[in-house]
């Protein structure tokens, strides 16, 4: 038990901070801001490819994929720092789909797709949700029908984020409509978004984040695009979602935001006699946020450690997801109270302040991960069953 970074880990963190100070040019920042913190622009693409070339994206990956063979902890430090720097890192591709492809994919995926992901040259969107399949994901109706050596895919996906600039979609499709249990008839595919039968329309959300409805119209792919076992997609989905849950909770940006708000509050005038930071209620909000973010940090560090040891438990992964997603909302509220009505000004407004405008936007985006990535109700079901051995009602 030693809950501190090693000297080498601290050195890595400092090296990364230096690297990103240089990488995050004002032009790149402006582009990311324009794209609502989602990425996809030209400068963003170039920066991703540079991180790939410089060997950062695959830091914790085995050499055979072009990685550097360090542990999940080092990989985690990289992701934390890239996010802290304010770069919208495509972590779903690199941290969740990538590893799942490496584990379950065929030769083509392992030898071409995965190394390209680690070079920052290939992006994958996630096609699970449908108009009728949300939390109950096994209800997907998009179909893949065998035709000779190929598969023909038809259907509609909903909320397919980043799909408008991704190269492939990691798609859940029904391959056995007659399976007695609906989650037993699903297979996973890697579908090229460049196919003429593929199309998407934007969906705009409260937080300004764009997502998409995607359409699959007689898309024909070879069997090499199928991932894992036939009708065995559910296992891959849960494995990917477990990894996704871990990467959703990243405390880098929020700890940075916290520090910035403290600095701001110490200099900001509250009334003739005192600064914002001198108000007892502000101090209480700061302390509450600080204590909450500290736990977020420890929870994710523990998970990275458990991944390194190969002992990651289901209940703990779900606990991190619930705590983190609800914690973000709480912290945005507490910090938002401190910046007060300047946190109601949008970033392009006259008089907007950088931190306050960021809180204005973050507060609008924060609900996504309480229901996305497996609704928190489902996570709490998992925690009481897997963490406390409590029986649960059948669904």
């Amino acid at each position, binding site marked *: *038990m*030693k*809950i*501190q*970074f*090693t000297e080498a*880990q601290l050195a890595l963190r400092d090296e990364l901070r230096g690297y990103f100070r240089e990488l995050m040019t004002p032009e790149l920042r402006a582009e990311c801001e324009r794209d609502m913190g989602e990425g996809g622009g030209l400068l963003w693409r170039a920066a991703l490819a540079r991180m790939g070339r410089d060997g950062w994206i695959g830091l914790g990956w085995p050499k055979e994929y072009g990685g550097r063979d360090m542990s999940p*902890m080092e990989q985690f430090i990289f992701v934390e720092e890239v996010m802290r720097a304010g770069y919208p890192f495509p972590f779903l591709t690199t941290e969740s789909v990538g590893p799942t492809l490496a584990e379950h994919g065929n030769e083509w995926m392992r030898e071409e797709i995965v190394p390209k992901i680690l070079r920052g040259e290939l992006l994958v969107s996630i096609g699970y949700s449908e108009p009728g399949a949300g939390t109950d994901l096994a209800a997907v109706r998009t179909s893949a029908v065998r035709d000779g050596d190929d598969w023909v895919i038809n259907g509609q996906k909903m909320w397919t984020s980043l799909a408008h600039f991704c190269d492939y979609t990691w798609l859940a499709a029904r391959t056995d409509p007659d399976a007695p249990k609906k989650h037993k008839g699903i297979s996973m595919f890697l579908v090229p978004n460049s196919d003429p039968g593929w199309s998407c329309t934007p969906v705009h959300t409260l937080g300004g984040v764009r997502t998409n409805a995607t359409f699959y119209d007689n898309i024909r792919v070879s069997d090499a695009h199928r991932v894992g076992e036939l009708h065995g997609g559910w296992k891959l989905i849960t494995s990917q979602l477990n990894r996704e849950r871990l990467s959703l909770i990243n405390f880098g940006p929020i*700890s*940075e935001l*916290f*520090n910035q708000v*403290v*600095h701001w*509050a*110490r200099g900001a005038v509250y009334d003739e006699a005192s600064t914002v*930071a*001198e108000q*007892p209620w*502000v*101090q*209480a*909000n*700061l*302390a*509450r946020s*600080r*204590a909450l*973010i*500290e*736990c977020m*940090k*420890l*929870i994710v*560090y*523990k998970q*990275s*450690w*458990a991944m390194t*040891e190969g002992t990651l438990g289901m*209940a*703990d992964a779900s*606990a991190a997801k*619930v*705590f983190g997603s609800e914690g973000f909302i709480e912290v945005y509220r507490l910090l938002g109270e401190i910046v007060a009505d300047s946190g109601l000004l949008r970033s392009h407004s006259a008089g907007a302040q950088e931190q306050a405008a960021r809180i204005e936007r973050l507060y609008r985006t924060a609900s996504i991960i309480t229901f996305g990535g497996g609704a928190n*109700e489902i*996570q*709490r*079901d998992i*925690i*009481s*069953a897997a*963490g*406390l*051995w*409590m*029986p*649960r*009602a059948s669904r």
Partner: protein
Amino acid sequence: MDFGFSDIQDELRGLARKILDDAVSASTLLAYDEYAEPRFDRALWRTLLDAGLPGIAVAEEHGGMGLGFMELGLFIEELGRSIAPVPVLAHCVSGMLPLQQFASADIQARLLPPAARGELLLSGAFWTGSVGGAVEPVQALPAEGGFILNGSCRGIPFARQADWLLLPVHSANGVAVVLVATDAAGVQMTDLQMTHFEPYAQIELSDVRVAAADVVMASGGEALVAWTREHCTAALCAQQLGAADRAMRMAASYTSERKQFGVPIATFQAVGHRMADCYIDVECLRLCTWQALSLLSEARAATTEVQIAKIWAGDVGHRVSYACQHVHGGTGIDRDYPLWRYCLWLRFNEVTLGSSSAQTAALGQRLSQGEGLFT
């Protein structure tokens, strides 16, 4: 970054749990309810001493195991899990540890070996007041190289059972720290009745003489007080962690067995989710506490981390206590069922040495001065 237990830590936890499981149960604790008897199981204390556990963090040269505060904290977590009636916090954390850290070699050689063997029982006046609470109003006038003490201390655990008390006192040069024999002339004790039935006494001192040899620090005692209170606070967090984890698991088992409407009540999503929230809470307390123990064990600055751990200890103790009572229904508060005593301890640990609100205010003030930010 290592969240795993070393082999020695694993062994110590296993050993402590085995001894405590064998010796402590609802039926043994019954004897102390409502102060029917002083809550001190001397046979268990002897067993723990023979196993060397109270001396975990005492140097080998003084007869201890020579391990760190981390290991002591893990032992205290087990004590919290069993709410064992033994004076480990008083004797080890507010007695032996500050002596080992601050006292002269003479005092250490005289007191630590018998204390580690349990021939002497120590306690200290570090358990009252809020965050950074004031030194109790005891005035010390210099006399023959030592002091003469007058004043009072509000509450010292196991004072009546102890042989020596470690007292911070006010002298002309600021804070001094002295050892007072509990049978010294002029020491008067009044028993307190605490919510959790632990032996506590209030002390009156009238012209109590302290020999030069019993002065731990003639001046500069503020450092000892701050150091000791920080360790005491972390120890309370560890005790809270064990107690909260145990109460939560009791509720999880109970709701899995108890049926209403023909099904186990655990299968109601609202019940499962309330317990899931306890699980998350306890995990947060665990990680913050372990981090605080780990830093203190390495003699690193840990003020922020200890404050954060105590914020969680207060909030989690309160929430887990009421969630567990609630999902048990009437059984939870029935004195024939073991949960209720845990609720008392969860409350004691919550409030002692600064509640969540008090710790929040203290941390907030430090943050407003630019201390304790993320690195």
